[in-house]
C-alpha cells in the first residue's frame, strides 16, 4: 500500500519534471529564435516609426501603413528576408519614400508604432521631421569626387541645400575644373532615400542607413565649450573616482611627503 502511494508520487513528480523540462526546452529554442529574428537593425522604417526595439514591441504587423502608401514604398517583411518578420520597411534603391506632405502611412497605424507626434510641428503633420535614416556618401565611388559633374542625388533631394548640399572645391589634377561634391547634413536628412534612388553609379555611392547605425556618440569627455546647449549634455555626467594608495592623500601632500628623508 505504502509503496504504491510512494510510486504514484514518484510518477507524478517525474511527469511534472518532464513537462517542466519540455517547456523550458521549448522556451529556450523559441526565445533564441526570436532574439535572432529581432537582431537585424538594418531595415529602414516608415516615417514616424518608434526608435529601436520599441518599434518591434508596438507594431502589430497589420500592414495598414503599407496599404496607405500611394507609392508602394513600404513592404511587410516576409519570411526569408532576414528582417523582423511581418514588419514594414522600405528599400530606397527600389522605391524611396516620396515624403508625402500628409504622410498617409502614419495616421493609418492603429497601434502608435508610427508616432504622429514625432512627425508633427504645432499639431500639424510635418514630413520634414521624419527620421527614417541618414544618407552616407561613398567618396571613393561617387563620381563627383572624381571630378565628373553629376549632382543627380543633390537634385533629387526633397530637402535640397539643407540635407544635401554641394561643396565646391578646386580640382588640382586638371588645374582648371571644380569639384561639386555632395555633402549630407544629418541634422536635416530625413532618410527618404531619394538620393540613393537617383544615384547614377551601378551600386549607389550614396546610401541610407538607420541613424543609430551611422552616427557616433561623443560621450562626456569632449564638449563644445563655446556652445551653451552642448554643455547641458554634461549635466547627466557622473564623476568617476579611482582611489589608489597614492591618491588617498592630496597630490600636493604626496609630493611634499619626503618619506622621512629630511628627518634627522
Amino acid at each position: 500500500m505504502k509503496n504504491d502511494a510512494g510510486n504514484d508520487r514518484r510518477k507524478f513528480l517525474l511527469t511534472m519534471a518532464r513537462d517542466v523540462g519540455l517547456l523550458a526546452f521549448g522556451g529556450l529554442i523559441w526565445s533564441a529564435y526570436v532574439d535572432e529574428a529581432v537582431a537585424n537593425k538594418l531595415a529602414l522604417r516608415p516615417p514616424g516609426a518608434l526608435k529601436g526595439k520599441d518599434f518591434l514591441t508596438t507594431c502589430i504587423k497589420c500592414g495598414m501603413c503599407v496599404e496607405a502608401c500611394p507609392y508602394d514604398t513600404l513592404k511587410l517583411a516576409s519570411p526569408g528576408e532576414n528582417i523582423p518578420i511581418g514588419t514594414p520597411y522600405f528599400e530606397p534603391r527600389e522605391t524611396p519614400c516620396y515624403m508625402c506632405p500628409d504622410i498617409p502611412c502614419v495616421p493609418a497605424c492603429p497601434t502608435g508604432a508610427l508616432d504622429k507626434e514625432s512627425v508633427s510641428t504645432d499639431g500639424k503633420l510635418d514630413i520634414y521631421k521624419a527620421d527614417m535614416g541618414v544618407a552616407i556618401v561613398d567618396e571613393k565611388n561617387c563620381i563627383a569626387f572624381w571630378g565628373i559633374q553629376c549632382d543627380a542625388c543633390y537634385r533629387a533631394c526633397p530637402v535640397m541645400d539643407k540635407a544635401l548640399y554641394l561643396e565646391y572645391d578646386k580640382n588640382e589634377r586638371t588645374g582648371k575644373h571644380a569639384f561639386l561634391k555632395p555633402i549630407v547634413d544629418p541634422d536635416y536628412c530625413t532618410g527618404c532615400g531619394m538620393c540613393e534612388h537617383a544615384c547614377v553609379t551601378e551600386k549607389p555611392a550614396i546610401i541610407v542607413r538607420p541613424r543609430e547605425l551611422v552616427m557616433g556618440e561623443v560621450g562626456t569627455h569632449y564638449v563644445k565649450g563655446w556652445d551653451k546647449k552642448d554643455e547641458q549634455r554634461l549635466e547627466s555626467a557622473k564623476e568617476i573616482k579611482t582611489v589608489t594608495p597614492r591618491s588617498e592623500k592630496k597630490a600636493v601632500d604626496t609630493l611634499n611627503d619626503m618619506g622621512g628623508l629630511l628627518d634627522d
Partner: protein
Amino acid sequence: MIKHKYMILRRLTQVGLLVLYFGANAWGWKVLIGNLSASKFLEKIPLADPYAVLQMSVAGAALASDVIIGAIIITVLYALIGGRAFCSWVCPINMVTDAANWLRRKLRMNQVAKKPPVYRDARYWILALSLILSYLLGVAAFEFVSPISMVHRGIVFGLGFGWAAALSVFLFDLFILKNGWCGYVCPLGGFYSTIGRFSLIRVTHDAEKCTECMHCKEVCPEHQVLHMIGKESLPVLSGECTNCARCIEVCNDDALNFHIRSFAKQSKKEK
C-alpha cells in the same frame, strides 16, 4: 449537398475574408483593410487580434486606443459566438489542417497511427509560455513564429517563404499527429478556447435520437468535447469545440444541432 452546408459556408467565409483583405492591398478596396492582426472594417471600425494585443501589452508596448478597442470588439464577438469559431470560420490554417485530415482519412493513416497521447492541454502551457517570453524578450513572442500570420500575411502581402509554414503544419498533421497543430499546439486556439468558454451558440446533443454510429467523433477535430455522445443529452460545453458544425452535418439521425445556450438550459429544466 446538404451534408456539406456548413463546410461550404465556412470555406466561403474563410476565402471571402482573404479576398477582401487581398483586395484592400491589391486594388484599394475599403471593406476590410489590414490583416487578421489588426484591421479596419468599412474605414471606421477597428478590429484587432486580442491575443497579439495581450502579448504586446505584456511585452511593454504603450498601445494606441484604436488597437485596444479593436481587440475588445473581437473578444466580445467571439465570447458570444464561440471563441474557436475563429478557428473553423476564419483562420486560414484551418484549410491546411482540414486538407491534412482529409488525406489522413483517405490514406487510412488513423489505422496505422498510435492512439494519440492526451496532451491536449499543451496549448495552454504554450499560451502561458508565450506570455512569459513576450515579457522577457520585450516583443510579442508568438507573432514571430506564428504560421497563422505567416500564411495569412503571405496571402495578402506576398508570401516569401511563408508557404513553408503552411507545409510544416500540413506535414505535422498528416504524419505526426492527427489534428496535431490545432488540437495540441496552437496557443491562439487555446486563447480562443478560453474566451469562448461561456459563449451562447452551442452544439447540443440529443441522446435519444443518437444511434451511436460515431461518425461525429470521427470528424471532430476536438473529439474529446463530444464525450456525451450516445450517453446524455447535453450541450457541448467545452471551449475547445470550434463550432465547425462538421458533427451536425455528418449525423444522419439529427441528434446534433446548434442551440442558443440559454434555450438549451431552459429546455433541460423543462424536462
